């Protein structure tokens, strides 16, 4: 009698196959997770502690000075202790809809034409500036940060999580007022 003619044998083989496939899937996931965590160890430990992530902008020309990224926890600490000036690089409508309390608006378009803060805000060149926009996928904060550095501001950071992360963390936001 051939093996596939025996119903019980087929059932046993299918069960065994299923078990082997599940075991293989688990093994692949474990290996991938281990490799991924090992490869990105410093990034993950930094993110766990809420530290600024390493800058990864390979498109930047060599020698160009870039603003340093900064994480949510540092932004919150510097915001609360008023150690930094927060700059919102989004447009006026987004700013009016909601922004980090105490932030100054400086949209990228405006910064390209005329890099000046609103007259009410006095920002000395040695001030610590944190620029943000609409989260990780928004690059306006990095562009505004670069323009600020070119204009002579020495201590410029980019908060990559931006307004969405700040708002979702339940930290103070304000509306209106440009």
């Amino acid at each position, binding site marked *: 009698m051939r093996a*596939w003619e025996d119903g019980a044998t087929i059932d046993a*083989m299918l069960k065994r*196959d299923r078990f082997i496939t599940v075991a293989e899937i688990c093994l692949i*996931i474990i290996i991938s997770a281990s490799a*991924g965590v090992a*490869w990105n160890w410093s990034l993950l430990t930094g993110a766990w502690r809420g530290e600024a992530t390493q800058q*990864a902008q390979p498109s930047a020309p060599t020698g160009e000075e870039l603003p340093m990224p900064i994480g*949510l926890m540092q932004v919150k600490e510097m915001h609360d202790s008023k150690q930094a000036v927060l700059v919102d690089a989004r447009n006026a409508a987004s700013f009016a809809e909601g922004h980090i309390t105490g932030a100054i608006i400086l949209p990228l378009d405006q910064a390209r034409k005329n890099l000046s803060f609103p007259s009410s805000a006095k920002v000395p060149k040695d001030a610590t500036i944190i620029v943000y926009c609409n989260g*990780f*996928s928004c690059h306006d904060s990095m562009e505004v940060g670069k323009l600020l550095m070119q204009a002579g501001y020495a201590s410029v950071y980019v908060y990559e999580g931006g307004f969405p992360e700040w708002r979702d963390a339940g930290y103070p936001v304000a509306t209106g007022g440009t």
Partner: protein
Amino acid sequence: MNRLRRYLPAAVRVTLGAIFIYAAVVKIADPVAFAGSVAAYKILPYFANYLAAAVLPFLELFCGVLLVLGYRVKAGALIIAALNVVFMAAVASAIVRGLDIDCGCFKQGGDKTSPWIALARDTVFLAMTFVVLKLDPGARRHPSPPMQEQ
């Protein structure tokens, strides 16, 4: 017809594997940007975005390599099918919530890919995975039983 039936599954398997290897390599090269793409979906908490950005590309890479090599095809294809379902659910949720984000599927940054295009692309990948699972000999552990004699 026979030739098509013979070579099509292998061609689909290698193509699918190569696509996933490419997708993985560009993400591994820039994990911070990929974490940003994951975070833009606003599904996971802060640290989980980084963890997903660290692990997912390696899962794609290993499964892609398995498909290209034709080794442990069933396990690799099943994981890729599951990943595609997760990606499609994430993209669909972004569409429903009206998020104007890049799908983050391949190269990070640059021009945005419409979520509808991303969804269509993932549907094609899912269909390719089913072709591999159904037709590729590597996805079957035992040969099919012969036709019953009349």
